């Protein structure tokens, strides 16, 4: 028995030593790099979000470094996978801050996971930029938390107007993911906007993200005979919901928010997602000069893959951070924070980014429709 405890003691000591290797709070990286941490859902349920966002960020960092980096140093991007799972973001962000000593954190797409990491960044006074979490609560966590996308009160209102004006829907059913902060927030603002516009909600049902069977709720929605169904969810669930709605003969348009945007939506959903609508941050087919270059660079870097909104926002988040570090002239957390808060009219791929007093970006939304397995641009809504 004795040699076992000695063994465990030895292992524990080694682990503790490894942990102490890089003391917390080391700001600039070793020698000539500035360490920036990123956490993303590279695998799991929302993997395409994490991968797109990560690829956008990688492209931005490579371009920044090719142009000589910032403050004479190269940016070193340290990426951690959070497996699309609750609990993981806290672990990996703690590691990035305490062990790797990053100067800033980029991530996540899903609001629930951003909300998990934000308090940790706030406590450690490390600025965090979420590329595409739209729930308002994310930046309300504290003054070190920023985002480069619009927020759900805006997106919800946009979709409410879209439902009543473009779809001419009078009766709408709402089908919410009760587990996701993003879904609940977006549903809330949609309902407020739609009711204010004189619409009628005929059914409100919930599902749990990750469920496979939605027929029970959809049967109840069908019985309420809505003109359209608002589904503020993520693509894996949405694809199955579209399939099962078609199977049950619920043949009205389904529409949702930026959580829909993934090529997996079409891959899993197939014909069932055809003709449905969603709002998002950016459409590659409406090109400004900036986005044209971005699309061609991205295609060159990632084997002809077309960038989606998550990729564009991932790119913008890194660019906004680099710009802030340049203006701050330092890698201190407080200095970067102040520079980020002062970001004004920064020309990004997804439009001009201005950080407002709530540390959110004010930007236009676009509405896309699934047509022939592609996402087709329909309209732009200015804030």
């Amino acid at each position: 028995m004795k040699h076992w405890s000695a063994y465990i003691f030895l292992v524990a000591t080694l682990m503790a030593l490894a942990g102490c290797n890089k003391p917390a709070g080391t700001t600039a990286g070793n020698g000539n790099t500035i360490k920036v941490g990123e956490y993303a859902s590279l695998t799991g349920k929302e993997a395409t979000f994490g991968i797109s966002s990560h690829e956008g960020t990688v492209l931005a960092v490579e371009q920044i470094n090719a142009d000589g980096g910032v403050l004479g140093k190269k940016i070193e991007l340290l990426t951690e996978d959070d497996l699309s799972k609750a609990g993981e973001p806290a672990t990996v962000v703690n590691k990035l801050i305490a062990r790797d000593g990053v100067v800033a954190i980029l991530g996540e797409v899903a609001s629930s996971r951003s909300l998990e990491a934000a308090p940790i960044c706030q406590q450690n006074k490390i600025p965090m930029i979420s590329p595409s979490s739209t729930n308002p609560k994310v930046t309300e966590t504290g003054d070190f938390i920023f985002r480069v996308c619009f927020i759900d009160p805006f997106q919800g209102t946009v979709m409410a107007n879209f439902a009543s004006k473009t779809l001419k829907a009078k009766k709408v059913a709402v089908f919410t993911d009760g587990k996701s902060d993003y879904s609940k927030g977006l549903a809330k603002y949609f309902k407020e906007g739609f009711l204010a516009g004189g619409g009628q909600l005929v059914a409100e049902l919930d599902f749990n993200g990750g469920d496979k069977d939605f027929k029970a709720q959809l049967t109840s929605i069908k019985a309420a005979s809505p003109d359209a169904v608002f589904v503020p969810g993520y693509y894996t669930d949405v694809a199955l919901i579209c399939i099962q709605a078609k199977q049950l003969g619920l043949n009205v348009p389904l529409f949702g928010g930026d959580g829909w945007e993934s090529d997996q939506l079409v891959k899993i959903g197939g014909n069932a997602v055809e003709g449905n609508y969603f709002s998002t941050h950016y459409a590659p087919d409406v090109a400004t000069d900036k986005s044209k270059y971005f699309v061609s660079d991205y295609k060159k870097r990632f084997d002809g893959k077309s960038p989606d909104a998550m990729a564009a926002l991932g790119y913008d988040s890194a660019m906004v951070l680099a710009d802030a570090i340049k203006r701050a002239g330092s890698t201190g957390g407080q200095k970067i924070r102040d520079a980020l808060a002062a970001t004004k009219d920064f020309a990004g791929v997804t439009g001009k980014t201005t950080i407002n007093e709530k540390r959110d970006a004010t930007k236009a939304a676009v509405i896309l429709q699934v047509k022939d397995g592609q996402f087709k641009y329909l309209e732009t809504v200015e804030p």
Partner: protein
Amino acid sequence: MNEFLQQLVNGVSLGAIYALIALGYTMVYGVLRFINFAHGDVFMLGAFAGYYLAPFVNRLLPPQTYLSGAVVMVLAMAICALIGMLIEFLAYRPLRHRPKLTVLITAIGVSLFIEYTCQHPAVFGAAPHAFPKLIPFTTWQIGGLVLDSSQAIVFVTTVLLLAALTFIVQRTRTGTAMRAVAFNPQAAALMGVNLSSIISFTFGLGSALAGAGGILFAMNYASIEPLMGVQVGLKAFIAAVVGGIGNLPGAALGGLVIGLLETFAGGIPGLSNYRDGIAFAILIIILLFKPAGLLGKSEAEKV
């Protein structure tokens, strides 16, 4: 009325899948008196077996026909039976004479091992896969009621498998041996029953049913991932307990009860968010008021 009938159809097709998986839990409990927590993961492996087999089978047979669908299912069931027997051989057999708690905890370990190995990018990866269409998809409209071919196949397959299982357990020599082992393993061994091969057979049979359940589930819900067996496995386990663990008709009944209640709860606004909790609430109620389950007989504890 239409809505009620539609929910009935939805509930029965979900419940039938729970029933198939619950049978595996109950059979293993019957002969070994422990819960094989890795059973839900065998269900997942069944779905993935179908996913990887379908392209091969479609090359040999006309794709998307009932014949090719049946071949995929039988092959997946065979693979799952082998996996089930392998799990028993590697993980549980060495522990057969240890306390039941040891085996139970090992089962949880096996379950986590399968789940996390399969999530590795080199195996299946954690992202959901779109399950290929195995059978022709048709829908029948009866009034406002919609029934589709995959739901119909779930009913038919479940009934056929239940009948086959009942036949094996009640009418064959192996089935008699299984029942003897469940009744009293020592006495059965003394009568010349080969314990190891019967236990192995039980695992194979239960795992084959889980594999069939995996294919049926994937056919109905179109997307599969390495963690899909966790929630479904738990529900099926509850179904087995609700029906009376160790009791085969009980497991089938329990599956239907859970599937139906879950579906009806899911259709009620305000209650739909608690849908996944329904099964657990039923479990608590059953354990409080009828601990032996709906069809179980309470036994006096042997001291």
